[in-house]
């Protein structure tokens, strides 16, 4: 970075910060999905769990909407390597 432009630095860095934390969020959701201890608890108390899940679905939905523009476009523009990032998601 020989001639850094403050605005460009901000855009680059905020993109990375958002991307990293967004990916972290995806993994948190993944942990919740694969959580073996959660499933055991869910079955006996199905009625109690359902409303919580209804609350959560719109949130996930909203998050995807919010970040679709910022994150996905910037990452997609980058080339084939970002598919590697996404593949980590499926670990």
């Amino acid at each position, binding site marked *: *970075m020989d001639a850094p432009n403050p605005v460009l630095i*901000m855009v680059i*860095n905020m993109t990375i910060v958002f991307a*990293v934390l967004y990916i972290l969020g995806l993994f948190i*959701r993944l*942990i919740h999905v694969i*959580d073996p201890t*959660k499933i055991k608890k869910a079955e006996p108390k199905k009625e109690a769990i359902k409303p919580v899940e209804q609350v959560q679905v719109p949130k996930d939905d909203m998050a995807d909407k919010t970040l679709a523009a910022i994150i996905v476009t910037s990452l997609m523009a980058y080339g084939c390597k970002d598919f590697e990032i996404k593949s980590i998601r499926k670990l």
Partner: protein
Amino acid sequence: MDAFLVAIQSVWTDSGYVALNMGNITMIVVGLILLYLAIGKGYEPLLLTPIAFGCVLANFPNNGFHEGVMWAIGQGIQMEIFPPLIFLGVGAMTDFGPLIANPNTLMLGAAAQFGVFVALGGAMLLGFNVQEAASIGIIGGADGPTAIYLATKLAPDLLGAIAVAAYSYMSLVPLIQPPIMRLFTTKEERAIKMGQLREVTRFERIVFPIMATIIISLLLPPIASLIGMLMLGNLFRESGVTDRLSDTSQNALCNIVTIFLALGTGLTMSADKFLRLQTVEIIFLGLVAFAGGTAAGVLFGKVMCKLSGGKINPLIGSAGVSAVPMAARVSQIEGQKANPSNYLLMHAMGPNVAGVIGTAVAAGTMLAMFGG
């Protein structure tokens, strides 16, 4: 009698009183003012008290701190040994549960880093080079250890001013944030009540720090030791089988390192490094960074509020600057002012701890871009 006078005179001549210059005196006064802020005003006293005392000590002429315990403490600062050890304790003290329960709040922790880059830009406009500007910007992250870690690596001469600004503004969060929060939100938004957070399982709590370490450290190796220690401390806390280590990380070790880190930071505050226009600029930019981060957090909270159909109270966005747990408490207080039955604290803890990770990521990004 003559020998007596000669001896007394020689002790006096070698004393600090004779060598004392205006720079020393001013810095000692600065140290005393910081002590007043720490003890009298209660600004982050655990850190500002030893920082301020170190500032006083560092400005005694001929103090011989090029050797002995003060030299050793200085080495621990220069070699970046202390900040990751503090983060070990921070990790052991941090409950990531609210974040895991509602991972969307990570976005608020990201948005609040905006202040970091506003201040970075401002610093560059004021003539700081990009390394210095990054170190100044990080004040807006409201994370002392991260700020000290970054400043030590990128701009060691500014370390004292940056640490003082970071810790001072962190304790001023209850004064700085509320007006900004009210400016950008309507009473209706502030009154929004948020649903109960779901329970987080032990499995999730244990896997989270491990996974976060891997994802972040692989992408941003310069902060591997910071994130690694933070998450190791959290793993000690959550594993349920390492309580001894969690306890020591939070208490004995964290307190010992806090004393050394803060005293050592104060010891870097020599007159030639601190008594410059730059220090005033840093303090001003720090305020810009805090305000910018708060505003960005609240505004992003408004966006999330809209997108969620009014289920998210934008006030929790300001907690994304971290300053754990003070910023979250400010969200709680402002929420209750608008709606006395409102209870935002746990929801604000999500962005609050996300802000710690966000600032570390921002520091890592800047190190990756501007580091040696």
